[in-house]
């Protein structure tokens, strides 16, 4: 049940450079989002029917559960569950994506044992072809170039 590490090169059916096209992220635009401006420590948890954006870290032992997407502007080291009511299109995005366990809809994954990889860049986890896949995420991209 380990992650599939889909690298940049694997992400062929988008723009080729690895960046998602605008339409890829269009579904994510939703009014129903809360902003959490603090670090979640061990034992703390957030549940929300919608999207969650966290300005801070999610430490080991903390839990984030959303029916929509989860975005962490910091290190995500705890347990995260996006699309908790079964939405397979939900994504998890983090500045540093190192979760104890990552769940999307009814998929549960954990990082491989004895491996401590720090890619040093923001990453995005989503379900592709029925498998939770992690890919590099380049913030900005087209959004700055094209009008939304």
């Amino acid at each position, binding site marked *: 049940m380990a992650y599939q590490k889909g690298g940049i090169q694997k992400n062929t059916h988008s723009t080729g450079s690895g960046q998602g096209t605008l339409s890829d992220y269009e579904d994510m635009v939703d009014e129903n989002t809360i902003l959490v401006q603090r670090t979640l420590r061990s*034992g703390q948890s957030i549940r929300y029917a919608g999207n969650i954006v966290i300005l801070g870290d999610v430490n080991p*032992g903390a839990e984030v559960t959303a029916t929509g997407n989860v975005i962490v502007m910091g290190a995500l080291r705890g347990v995260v569950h996006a699309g908790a009511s079964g939405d397979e299109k939900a994504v998890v995005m983090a500045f540093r994506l190192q979760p104890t*366990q990552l769940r999307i809809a009814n998929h549960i994954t954990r990082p491989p044992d004895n491996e401590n990889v720090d890619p040093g860049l923001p990453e995005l986890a989503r379900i592709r072809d029925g498998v939770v896949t992690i890919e590099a995420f380049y913030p900005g991209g087209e959004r700055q170039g094209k009008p939304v």
Partner: protein
Amino acid sequence: MGEVIVITSGKGGVGKTTTTANIGTGLAAMGYKVVLVDTDIGLRNLDVVLGLENRIVYDLVDVTSGNCRLRQALIKDKKLDGLHLLPAAQTKDKTAINPEQMRQLCADLKKEFDYIIIDCPAGIEQGFRNAIAGAEKAVVVTTPEVSAVRDADRIIGLLEAADLREPKLIINRIRPKMVRQGDMMSIDDIIDILAVDLLGVIPEDEMIVIMTNRGESVVLDQNSRSGQAYRNIVRRLTGEEVPVMNFDENEGFFKKLKKMIGIK
């Protein structure tokens, strides 16, 4: 029918969780079916010490509140087939379960496992009362410090009041050199105060820190003294007679060598 043993201490940081992990691992390595139950809700550590944190989906509170079946919450160890963990919840607190639920849980686990080892939280409040509710035997862990011994004494009193007679004692983190210099309480001093049976003595050992941080158990390490001490404890728990380890490091090299080849 299994046996339910609670590992407790009163004081925090004396090594309850480490002891639970090592006793459980040791029993499983001998071929017994073992389940470790972490009752430290809100401050769980046993999963981290065993290196199983990232496998947790359901926990103790999910089981007692009927959110999942017992079997779903049990996590199998990475290495030993006979070792299982029932993790505590982290986002709840001690009031999330009650002693009656623990009694029922222990009764259910007894049907399937040879040993049910319960890791008790520090303190004497509800967490402690939950942990001891289903237990048949108790092991008290202490260190050679006045404060830890004082708390162990209090705990032994509470265990006796709860009808857990004759708890066994583990003295952890002893430094033979300091004891010899008279700077640390000796095993005899502690037994003198607490007046309970000694289950074992574990010497202070860096290997414990190293192995614990790696999510492994020192009991499987054949070379360390603490590993040997834990293996002795495990054998005593199963009813074997094992002499207490000799901590005398003072003896010379030749004496040791002679002992090794058996000419005393």
